[in-house]
């Protein structure tokens, strides 16, 4: 089995979303297993009761208050930069209620430009862009609590 063939098989596993592939070709045997973090699939007889359908290793998916929306764009196809929350707190798109948001879709931003505010322990923390580019995604609703590492904006660099 050549490395290329194996590379293809790995690609196959990653694309398909299966957990494990074991293959024997005559003398050759390969086993490809995805790390827990990337696995969402688990085995259940069709229509099994709720407690059983979440895998033990799926705790995050089950309990996190993060909306599905934000995890989607968090892994973009192209070369967008995802701005993630460096702290836990509350997300504000504007300086104060009533003000226009710091940035909107399509805006050009420069490094150091303020994108939003995360309130943490009564402190207003300004989150700045690290790149120059275009806002191609606003991934968080105004006023929502954010966890560490949650996706806030998608920026296509210039």
């Amino acid at each position, binding site marked *: 089995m050549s490395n290329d063939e194996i590379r293809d098989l790995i690609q196959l596993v990653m694309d398909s979303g299966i957990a494990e592939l074991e293959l024997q070709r005559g003398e050759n045997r390969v086993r490809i297993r995805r790390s*827990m973090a990337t696995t969402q699939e688990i085995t259940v007889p069709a229509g099994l009761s709720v407690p059983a359908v979440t895998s033990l290793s799926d705790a*995050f998916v089950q*309990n996190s208050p993060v909306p599905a929306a934000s995890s989607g764009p968090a892994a973009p196809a192209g070369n967008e930069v995802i701005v993630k929350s460096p702290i836990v707190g509350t997300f504000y798109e504007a300086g104060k209620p009533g003000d226009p948001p710091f940035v909107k879709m399509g805006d050009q931003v420069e490094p150091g430009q303020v994108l939003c505010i995360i309130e943490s322990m009564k402190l207003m923390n300004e989150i700045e862009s690290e790149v120059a580019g275009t806002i191609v995604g606003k991934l968080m609703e105004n006023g929502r*609590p954010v966890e560490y590492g949650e996706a806030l904006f998608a920026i296509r660099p210039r």
Partner: protein
Amino acid sequence: MFQKILIANRGEIAVRVICACKDLGIKTVAVYSEADRHSLHVRFADEAICIGPAKSARSYLDIPSVISAAEITNVDAIHPGYGFLSENADFAEVCETSEIKFIGPKPEITRSMGLKQHARAAMAKCGVPILPGSEGILKSPEEGLEVAERIGYPVMLKASAGGGGRGMRVVREASELPTLLNQAQYEAQVSFTCPDVYMEKLIEAPRHIEFQVLADEHGTVEILGERECSIQRRHQKLLEEAPSPAVSPELRTQMMDRLREAMRQIGYTNAGTIEFLMDEAGKLYFIEVNARIQVEHPITESITGTDLVKSQILIAAGYKLPEIISQPIVFQGHAIECRINAENPDTFAPSPGRITGLNLPGDIGIRVDTAVYTDYVIPPYYDSLVAKLIAHGRDRTEAIVRMRRALEMFVVEGIYTTIPLHQKVMSDPDFIAGKVDTTFLNRYAKR
């Protein structure tokens, strides 16, 4: 009563607190680092908030992150578990100012208990026996020599703000005292930004015995007997039992009465542990107070039928002790805890990794507190505790045979654990005879 509690911890103790909350009908919020996404405390809490990267300095130890998580989830209280922020008085203060109840002693108590020399003086004042030593901080080598002469060599120099062996020196004769005092003070300055050092008599090969306290916020204090924690390696407890084979009913009653009074005078609240050394003559000397729940609390729960974590929460919620526990405390049988760590049983080298196969022992007289499951990956970033295995029996013999059986039936595949070491201990004639001290494990570690 609290509506929602945030648990500022991970692993088995986080799950333990979640259980107590479920039993009280209180909602729970778990916090976790990016390395703990797939942990059971995340799975079983009602809500879970990621508070930072794997490194605990930036997650479990990061006060702003924890407090922010508490604020965005609107909890009424925080349970710190053990380790991490549990004995951090500043954290307790920030909780207070953020109007979140910290489930533990008041900051000022935690702070003064943290200063060994303070705690020592306070306990002495209440008539609790302390090790002979310097009145307070050593002001000069001369004073050191004088005190050492009085109490007799060998002596121990300890950093007042200290812990974990740093700023500690054993002095065996007068000639070496000045140099060692210097070293200790320097180390104390570097480690704790406070050069204060005091002197205590050194007890060679002591027993380590600790008493469990519960105190409500209305001045009622109860002592729930003692635990024998002599089986340690490098000051890390590995196996504990309750009651201690070395404590007679008379001594127990006497100590419980004295400590009940001492903790009342100090104004201690919530749960805590008062640690002692016992010399060969069977005399107890106070060393320090641990102002938090202890890893080994389940053995006390087993022999007293009291849920200590539930009690902590009820105390913090303002309940009176008589409403929480049934007094007087009645002791039933004997309990032993083995700490199953992800370690090489011979070298004690940590052994993180994936658990590929698991069988948790059950059946009569066995309790397991754990946060692992088949295919769980033990991360290398935190302590190596995999599970606490607790055996309870009518007497010490029954507890030992049940523990032996449970260890045989405890299967962990894919990583090394301390199970084989515990099996050696369970069939060691000295252990079976109850003859243990803090040097006990050397016989195995040497191999």
